[in-house]
């Protein structure tokens, strides 16, 4: 089934990067304050871009400004989620996609480590059981 984005229409977006509506600046300011909070109190923030009224091209302009950092990670859970650090350490761009690669939600996390990357505590016991199970299994003893 063809997806909407595949329909070949050329959208006249705004004149290049900086959009005429000026909606990008406020988001950058919000990120800046979140960073300041993170630095001072360690409190992390997450901005849900779906709640921001962006004109066509605004989002691209924002991502262009945020740029690419050192870390980029992919989480394969219920579809792919890409987590990329922007040029500003502590500011992460999280894009959740569904198994059909449609964008579910785009968020900007301002934190030391994005919540999805750190291993959930409950998984540790499962991991332990799984490893114990593997170690006690015959195949493990042969190759040890």
């Amino acid at each position, binding site marked *: 089934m063809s997806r909407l984005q595949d329909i070949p229409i050329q959208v006249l977006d705004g004149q290049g990067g900086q959009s005429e509506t000026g909606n990008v600046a406020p988001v950058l300011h919000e990120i800046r304050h979140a960073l300041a909070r993170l630095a001072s109190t360690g409190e992390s923030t997450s901005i849900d871009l779906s709640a921001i*009224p962006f004109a066509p091209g605004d989002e691209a302009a924002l991502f262009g400004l945020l740029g690419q950092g050192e870390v980029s990670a992919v989480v394969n859970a219920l579809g792919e989620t890409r987590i990329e650090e922007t040029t500003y350490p502590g500011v992460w761009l999280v894009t959740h996609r569904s198994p059909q690669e449609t964008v579910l939600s785009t968020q900007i996390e301002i934190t030391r480590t994005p919540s999805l990357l750190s291993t959930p505590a409950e998984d540790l016991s499962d991991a332990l059981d799984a490893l114990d199970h593997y170690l006690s299994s015959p195949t493990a003893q042969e190759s040890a």
Partner: protein
Amino acid sequence: MKDDQTLGERLRESGISRRGFLKFCATTASMMALPPSMVPAIAAALETARRPSVIWLSFQECTGCTESLTRSHAPTVEGLIFDHISLDYHHTLQAASGEAAEEARRIAMEENHGNYLLIVDGSIPQKDGGVYSTIAGITNLAMLEEVAEGAAAIVAIGTCAAYGGLPHANPNPTGAASVSDIISGKPILNVSGCPPIPTVITGVLAHYLTFGTLPELDHLGRPKAFFGNSIHDRCYRRPFYERGQFAETFDDEGARKGWCLFKLGCKGPTTYNACATEKWNQHTSFPIQAGHGCIGCSEPDFWDRGGFYDALSVPTDDAGNILLGAAVAGAAAGAAVGLMNRKKQNTDTRAHEKVTVDDLNGD
């Protein structure tokens, strides 16, 4: 067919990892237009969410709302949710029909009496006993009252169910009414819009499934999360409105530059909905972004609020004949009073006696 597993157990059973569950909660929060900080609360709630039974009744409607919901290409999450709600009755979607369908509905009502979710779309005709719209010989009116009686909550999807919508528009031949016009004493949640934004429908359902309660409502019974702000408040073209840059026609230089559509009849300022942020078709666009003014479809009686292409500052009725009528009346009254004045002047002039010095005797 009843299943008492909680949503959390079912997710794990179908092999969803912790991270998968966390991602699910994050996107659900975003879908419910709740702040990301709510993710932990959502996670906790989803753990214990029961799988509710849902009865969907479609009355005098154009199936636009259902189309909108199913066409929503809801990403897996919606699909997942719908895997977990037992949509026990939807006469458009369900395979069964006729007597078998009605039988299924009765069973669902009996088994889940008091805690099933009733979803209604389409208005309910009341004139002539509601004969203008029936299902299997039962008038919508009777069916609604019957099903509503055992419902835990009712969600009116679309402006028709919420406020009467198109059928209710002047002259309202079928006496169409909204759910809240008929049912009282039950929590009713209106998800207006013609049709409502798909993600808003799913967002509201997700909220009910997650928390089991209705979200905070505004004075028209609509969830504030989605209907709290007017389109104008969240419109990306607002800076042009502030600067006074307006498109005069649909293809002039202003329109091409994406200027404000106030002068082309946009009802954004007086319409409360999430179109400007949620947008339609996976955040792709919404009417204003496509260059057409908002027609205020989530407000009651938006069909009767004057021309869609008359700006908010323009009076709705045709001033021409009013002006003419008033002018004629004014002139007529003026002429009448004028004649009376003229007559009075003439009588005074005729009655005028020449004043002589003797008339000036001081007091």
